[in-house]
């Protein structure tokens, strides 16, 4: 099946400033694709470029199966929708008037049914007649999300959809994203919330002008970090060197605190039993042995911090 998004060596420059450079990835239909990166990494610019709002400087892409060229812009925009960083509602109009305008612009059939469904999806049925200017920031954000659902897009670009939302509203948006992806909508999600990306996304890309990493969240973790075993004993080991150094499955170890050790291992399923036996043989009172998982946050910070402080000698 043709991917929903296929991006090849895409770049955008504003004069001398490079917004993003040489970005390539593919997103399958119905996938949730997380696009992470620090402020100014080029996320919004990428969304705008793929959404035909601005033209790439070089590179090519297929968006919703259509080549990203100026002649196809209208057809692409028909099949996608974008929820931008700031909602951009007509504040003097009511929620429903805002949605009616966009339903007409998308020429959707049976606009009133679509509008009702979109409002229901973001739980705003009760506020349909309110003026947008009288809504709180989070509610405005939800109107913008409803607006992006009107044309039943094949690809939905969400630029930080949960920034500024309360926990319950955030959960609602997460549920909506999951439901949409189950119904076959491809979601392109930019976010600064790493736990959100970890929970929702099939694939995650970390961008910092160039693409720094790409893959399922679990894979990024193992790619970047060796597996570690966390060991805790009731009393500190008198001679931990003797216990750990003799084990072939343990590559390195370090002390994390009183009776607490981190072991770098290649395969935890071999290392854990061996470590347990060695500790028992050394007469230690073992409190716990467990694999410690790196979060996506660790991965992200590792990459982004490295970019911010490049090691000496790197160009």
């Amino acid at each position, binding site marked *: 099946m043709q991917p929903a998004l296929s991006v090849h060596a895409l770049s955008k420059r504003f004069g001398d400033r490079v917004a993003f450079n040489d970005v390539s990835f593919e997103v399958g239909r119905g996938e949730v694709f997380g696009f992470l990166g620090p402020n100014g990494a080029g996320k919004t610019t990428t969304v705008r470029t793929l959404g035909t709002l601005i033209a790439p400087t070089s590179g090519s892409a297929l968006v919703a199966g259509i080549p990203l060229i100026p002649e196809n812009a209208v057809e692409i925009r028909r099949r996608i929708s974008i929820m931008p960083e700031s909602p*951009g509602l007509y*504040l*003097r*109009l009511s929620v429903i008037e805002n949605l009616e305008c966009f339903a007409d*612009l998308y*020429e959707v059939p049976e606009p009133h049914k679509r509008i009702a469904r979109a409002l229901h999806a973001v739980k705003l049925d009760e506020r349909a007649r309110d003026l947008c200017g009288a809504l709180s920031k989070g509610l405005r954000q939800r109107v913008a999300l409803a*607006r992006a659902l009107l044309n039943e897009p094949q690809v939905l670009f969400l630029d930080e959809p949960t920034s500024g939302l309360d926990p319950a509203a955030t959960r609602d948006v997460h549920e909506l994203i999951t439901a949409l992806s189950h119904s076959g909508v491809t979601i392109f999600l930019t976010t600064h919330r790493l736990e959100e990306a970890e929970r929702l996304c099939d694939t995650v890309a970390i961008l910092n002008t160039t693409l720094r990493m790409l893959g399922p969240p679990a894979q990024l973790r193992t790619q970047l970090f060796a597996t570690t075993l966390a060991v805790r004993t009731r009393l500190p080991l008198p001679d931990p060197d003797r216990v750990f150094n003799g084990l072939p499955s343990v590559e390195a170890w370090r002390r994390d605190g009183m009776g607490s050790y981190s072991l770098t291992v290649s395969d935890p399923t071999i290392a854990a039993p061996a470590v347990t036996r060695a500790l028992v043989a050394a007469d230690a009172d073992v409190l716990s042995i467990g694999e410690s998982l790196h979060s996506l946050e660790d991965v992200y910070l590792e990459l982004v911090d490295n970019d911010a402080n490049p090691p000496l000698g790197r160009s």
Partner: protein
Amino acid sequence: MKTTRVRAVLRKELREYRHNGNIIYAMAVVPLVFIVQPLVEIFTLKTSAALTLRHEDSLLYLLAIPALAPAMLASYGIVGERDQGTLEPLLATPIRSDELLAGKALAAFVPSLAIAYGIFGVFVAITELFARPAVAAALVRGPEVIAQVVFTPLLAGWSTWVGIAISARSKDVRVAAQLSALASLPLVAVTSLTAFGVIHATLRFAVICGVALLVLNRLALRVVASAFDRERLITGAK
């Protein structure tokens, strides 16, 4: 060009005017003030003045209204959307530049036309009712009324397009409004000079002006649409 999308923009604009009713009143107030003094003068004119009036085209003075009225609304059209941050979601829909511009132009043109015709109607009605009959007859003559009816939409159309073009290139709402008003002044000058007899209003002059305005109005959409730079509007400095 899809009329559904043009209509969607027009309807949205008209709804915004309705929610913000002051806009249209504000647009009507200035031209109303503009006709008070001439009306007062007309009431005081003696029958003997009719003879000179008959040889002047004073009524054309009212054509300054359609030449000026669209400036405010039209100049807000694009830069206003940008200012409110609503342009990006709008341009992310399948709307084409010419559809957006046509909707915006109609939204400035329609109320301006209504105001210009409305005020002209009020002026004529008051003159007929309260001025001396000879004065009224000398002032409100067939050719003058026809010129008014024909030139009102032509002038309003042109002024609308100038305002929209300025709006699409401006960074600031206030600058756009001032520039548009300024850009309407040449038209006001021509209509006023004609009204005061400096330019002699012949049929030939009227036809040339009429055809020129018609052609300009027909070309305007294409010209403004081709100069409409979506990328600059979204990413350019505000």
